[in-house]
């Protein structure tokens, strides 16, 4: 391998020897001090060999001097190595400069962190973890040498108590944050406490597993009312204070409002379009060409990302198309608007924690907003759910 590297550094040529008795030439060349590499027999009278470029003249002279025996022809098929590369680049100076600059830029950019990934956490916690990590100074574009993995791990565990373990792994331009979340049972270790109502409701079912009930079936309770007390008397009649446990099912009411417009604005293309390009290198973005306002242009982008093998390089090229549009008001049918508003209202109910399967009764009220050309749908649902919430002391 070292010999081949040295050969590449010196420059070498691939020669084709054609004729009968090539072995004689090879012996002669070796005796004259010409080293041969990767000698391959192609056919009965053709051999390929690699020799140092400076020895080629010597080889040709040898062949000319060898008067006795059949004649052997030698031809250069290819030239390889550093001197030839240098000669090529001397003809294309800008290419060489560009390659050199690219290599320098790559070396320089490789000193920074470009990608931060969180492994082992759910989607909501990922954002939270990234926010905490950002407080420590770790963000896309910081110097790799400025990273203090131990400090980031400590900060994560301090700020996010539901994390059981955190590990920051620096993998070149990518930082992987591995976390392990605590089990929920671990968090609220059941100490002594009471069960309170987490919502207003009408109690329909009460099952006490431990503690003393403070309400009865048919009672109406407000949020934070005491439902099951942790105080109870054991079999020996002694007063105890422990963790109240039980199921308190109640009819609960939820209300949500959804609004929809009776007018829809649709874009009509005028046929005029513009194009802008954008070169992005790490945190820097260089626009080529002017941009157009988005209120009267539809914007579509196409992105080309540079890959180095498996890794994604922080260099991308983006094409942005601007298509000029005029906005036209199109009337929306009443039924469609009502359906949209109803779905929005239900979306809000689902966000409040309502499950469709638990709904006992549903009421819908429709209002027309004459001033705003819209419709408002109010949905009230009655659901059956467990309203008990344990709070430790």
């Amino acid at each position, binding site marked *: 391998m070292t*010999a081949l590297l040295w050969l590449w550094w010196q420059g070498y040529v691939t020669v084709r020897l054609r004729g009968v008795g*090539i*072995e004689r030439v*090879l*012996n002669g060349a*070796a*005796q004259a*001090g010409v*080293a*041969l*590499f*990767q*000698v*391959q*027999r192609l056919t*009965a009278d053709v*051999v390929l060999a690699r020799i140092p470029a400076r020895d080629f003249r010597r080889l040709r002279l040898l062949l000319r001097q060898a008067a006795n025996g059949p004649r052997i022809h030698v031809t250069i098929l290819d030239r390889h190595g550093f001197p030839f590369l240098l000669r090529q680049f001397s003809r294309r100076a800008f290419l060489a400069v560009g390659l050199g600059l690219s290599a320098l830029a790559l070396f320089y950019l490789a000193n920074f962190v470009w990608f931060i990934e969180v492994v082992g956490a759910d989607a909501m916690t990922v954002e939270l973890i990234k926010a905490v990590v950002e407080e420590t100074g770790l963000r896309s574009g910081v110097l790799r040498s400025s990273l203090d993995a131990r400090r980031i791990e400590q900060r994560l565990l301090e700020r996010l108590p539901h994390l059981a373990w955190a590990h920051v792994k620096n993998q070149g331009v990518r930082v992987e944050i591995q976390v392990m979340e605590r089990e929920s049972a671990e968090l609220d270790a059941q100490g002594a406490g009471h069960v309170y109502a987490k919502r207003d409701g009408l109690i329909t079912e009460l099952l006490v597993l431990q503690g003393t009930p403070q309400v009865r079936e048919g009672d109406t309770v407000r949020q934070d009312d005491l439902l099951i007390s942790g105080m109870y008397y054991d079999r020996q009649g002694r007063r105890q204070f422990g963790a109240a446990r039980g199921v308190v099912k109640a009819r609960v009411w939820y209300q949500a409002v959804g609004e929809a417009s009776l007018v829809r604005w649709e874009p009509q293309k005028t046929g005029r379009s513009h194009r802008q390009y954008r070169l992005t290198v790490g945190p820097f973005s260089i626009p080529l060409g002017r941009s157009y306002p988005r209120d009267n242009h539809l914007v579509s982008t196409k992105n080309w990302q540079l890959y180095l093998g498996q890794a994604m390089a922080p260099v991308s090229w983006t094409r942005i198309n601007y298509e000029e549009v005029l906005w036209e008001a199109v009337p929306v049918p009443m039924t469609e608007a009502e359906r949209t508003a109803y779905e929005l209202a239900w979306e809000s109910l689902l966000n409040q924690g309502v499950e469709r399967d638990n709904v006992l009764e549903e009421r819908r009220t429709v209002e027309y907003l004459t001033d705003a050309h819209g419709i408002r749908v109010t949905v009230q649902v009655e659901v059956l759910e467990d309203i008990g919430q344990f709070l430790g002391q």
Partner: protein
Amino acid sequence: MRPAVRHNLKRKFAQTLDLPPSVVLDQAVIHILGDGEVQIVNHKGLVQYTAACVKARAVQGMIEVSGSELEIASFSAQQMKIRGRIRQVMLK
């Protein structure tokens, strides 16, 4: 002095002084690496080269390496390295 006597004397001289016989007797040294590489040091010239057979001259006689897809990885006056699927190395 006859060549056989001179050869015997050289051998005894090498044995007595614990010198490497390859140097004193000018004999070829053959290294075989698995079935993919043969290195011959101190050969006396290439006699035949095809993709199936490489013959080289040595003081001891003829060294014949046979196999398939044979290629001379490096060749100089002192040594040659043969690569390919080596099946047989014979000294004739």
